[in-house]
């Protein structure tokens, strides 16, 4: 993707719109009376979705990256936005999950019909818009400092989401998350300034042509990567994730687990595949994958040992994030003769997207269960399948995708990665993928096994669960499964722009 | 720049520096808060004042000189207020 002179493409304005439309939503939401904030959401969400769709169409039809040069100031002086295949796909996933979450949250974050503006709904919708804007800025940004601002925007939106309920435990979790995230972004910034000091530009496209193999570059790249790993919660920097993701209200957990942690992962891929292509050494790639493997094993085993549903799902997120890091040894193309391994590339992104849908659906289902029962102790879920069939069906479908049962998206992802391990001659990762699938089966069936079991004590449904919210969770789970039925089309799309 | 003016600058700034030293030593050696405050105000008012005074001939134009004096005045006001607040806090 080396670009001699950066020029805007015809549909480039969509990119700036994708970032700024939710920003406009934030500004309007801040001033309107809290009561009207949901109406703002009804306008922001569909139009934002339409913008994301338009970007995907433009990228797909053009068959090349869409570029926008902000203010007419071309890099290195100015900042450019760039949408290639993976950013467009990320944008689409983001739009779908956010809009679904918006629909789901409608039942939870409502302003009371009477009385003054309430805190939680006001804050929630603003945070939702912010996360959308930040994620779009992250996947479209092509300037390392611009991406830093986007990262901080994401952090500042995610942290208050964790402690929206205000209990002491969630505040503690939010503070821990905040500290990890801040150290992460400072280390990233440190690497970025070194890069500027070395090459006089922060633009990823320009960097790819200028980067030299030298110690200072490796130090910079290592700092950026470690910082982003802390934000992605890769083992052993995962300690902040379970309390944070489990403590948030259900729509928040869905967004945090499905999307927010992926933002920093996306940036790691940008650095190693776009800014510094060919500079990732075999050993470094093996190290990243080894940490990923550690995440899969440790995360899954810990998930198996959880007593509470939301914590189990959060540990499962740690494990599922581990798979993404196989992209580094498998897609770089270390095997002789293969420069580029599209198989692992597609597999990793499929894993990211299917996990996003499945995990969002799963957290929503867990939220509905907790709402209905007033608790989420796994041991006391016996017979829940009879009481909440749609919710549990959504849970089961997303669980199958996480395990990798055909024909789900998770299956295709893991299958592609397995084939890639053989092709690349790195069979040792295949073992981890298989064991990870078995462990995932263990913790999913730990819940599913109780679906139709006779309850120890009769289940008491405390609150009515809205049918439409159940359907939102189900449709996301169906998306995760359907992703497996269209395995060939995305692989070309994901390679647009490289 | 005339050498007389330079000599004035050197003299005034040297005196200013002396008051800073005096204030610091007072802060370290004096036995209790009121006497230390006394030392502090000396350094604040006179030290900075003399430094600013010494710099006056070296800056270009009356506006720049005025700014130096304003800086000193600000330091004077805030110094006085802080001193008062500290006295009350101690009491």
């Amino acid at each position, binding site marked *: 993707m080396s670009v001699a002179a950066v020029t805007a493409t015809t549909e480039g304005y969509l990119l700036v719109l994708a970032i700024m439309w939710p920003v406009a939503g934030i500004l309007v939401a801040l001033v309107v009376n809290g009561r009207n904030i949901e109406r703002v959401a009804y306008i922001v969400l569909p139009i934002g979705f339409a913008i994301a769709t338009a970007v995907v169409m433009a990228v797909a039809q053009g068959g090349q990256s869409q570029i926008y040069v902000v203010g007419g100031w071309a890099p290195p002086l100015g900042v450019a936005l760039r949408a290639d295949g993976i950013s467009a796909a990320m944008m689409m996933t983001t739009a779908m999950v956010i809009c679904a979450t918006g629909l789901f949250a409608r039942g939870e974050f409502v302003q009371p019909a009477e009385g003054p503006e309430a805190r939680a709904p006001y804050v929630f919708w603003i945070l939702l818009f912010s996360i959308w804007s930040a994620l779009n800025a992250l996947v479209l940004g092509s300037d390392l400092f611009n991406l830093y601002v986007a990262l901080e925007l994401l952090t500042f939106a995610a942290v208050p989401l964790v402690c929206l309920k205000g209990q002491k435990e969630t505040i503690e979790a939010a503070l821990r998350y905040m500290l990890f995230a801040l150290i992460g972004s400072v280390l990233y910034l440190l690497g970025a300034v070194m890069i500027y000091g070395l090459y006089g530009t922060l633009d990823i496209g320009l960097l790819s042509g200028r980067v030299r193999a030298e110690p200072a570059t490796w130090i910079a790249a290592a700092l950026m990567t470690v910082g982003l790993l802390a934000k992605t919660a890769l083992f052993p920097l995962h300690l902040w994730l379970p309390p944070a993701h489990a403590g948030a209200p259900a729509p928040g957990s869905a967004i945090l687990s499905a999307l927010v942690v992926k933002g920093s992962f996306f940036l790691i891929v940008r650095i190693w595949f776009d800014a510094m292509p060919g500079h990732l050494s075999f050993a470094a790639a093996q190290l990243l994958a080894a940490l990923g493997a550690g995440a899969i094993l440790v995360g899954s085993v810990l998930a198996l040992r959880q007593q509470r549903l939301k914590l189990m799902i959060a540990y499962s997120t740690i494990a599922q994030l581990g798979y993404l890091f196989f992209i580094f040894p498998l897609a770089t193309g270390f095997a002789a003769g293969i420069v580029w391994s599209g198989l692992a590339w597609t597999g990793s992104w499929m894993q990211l997207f299917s996990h996003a849908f499945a995990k969002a659906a799963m957290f929503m289902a867990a939220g509905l269960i907790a709402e209905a029962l007033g608790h989420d102790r796994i041991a006391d879920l016996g017979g829940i399948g009879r009481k909440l069939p749609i919710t549990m069906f959504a849970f089961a479908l997303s669980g199958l995708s996480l395990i990798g049962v055909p024909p789900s998206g998770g299956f295709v992802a893991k299958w592609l990665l397995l084939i890639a391990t053989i092709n690349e001659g790195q069979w040792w990762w295949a073992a981890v993928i298989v064991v990870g699938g078995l462990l995932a089966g263990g913790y999913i069936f730990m819940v599913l096994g109780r679906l139709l079991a006779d309850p120890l004590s009769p289940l008491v449904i405390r609150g009515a669960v809205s049918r439409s919210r159940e359907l939102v969770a189900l449709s996301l789970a169906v998306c995760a499964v359907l992703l497996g039925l269209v395995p060939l089309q995305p692989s070309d799309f994901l390679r647009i722009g490289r | 720049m005339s050498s007389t003016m330079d000599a004035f600058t050197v003299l005034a700034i040297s005196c200013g520096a002396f008051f800073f030293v005096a204030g610091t030593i007072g802060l370290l050696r004096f036995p209790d808060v009121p006497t230390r405050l006394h030392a502090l105000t000396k350094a*604040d008012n006179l030290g900075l004042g003399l430094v600013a005074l010494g710099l006056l001939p070296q800056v270009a134009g009356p506006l720049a000189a005025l700014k130096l004096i304003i800086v000193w005045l600000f330091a004077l006001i805030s110094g006085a207020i802080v001193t008062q607040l500290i006295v009350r806090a101690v009491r």
Partner: protein
Amino acid sequence: MPEFLFGAALFILGTIAVGLVRILYSRQAADCMMAAQLIGTGGVAILLLLAVATDTPPIVDVALMLALLAAFASVAFVGGLQGKASAQAEDHRK
């Protein structure tokens, strides 16, 4: 002349370092704030000296900013120490 001004700035920097010793050994918060105030004034003096020594007039604006805001931190601190008790008293009234 710049050499002399830099020398004077270094000298005042030295007094700042010595003033820090007060913070090191002090038992009372008031001592700390006094030392901080003295250091603030010293910083302003250093900035003025540097502005003339390097012939960069905008540095005077930095000195002005510091002189304007230096007292504010002290106010916040003193207020914070004293106000704690009264804020708690108010909470009890509720």
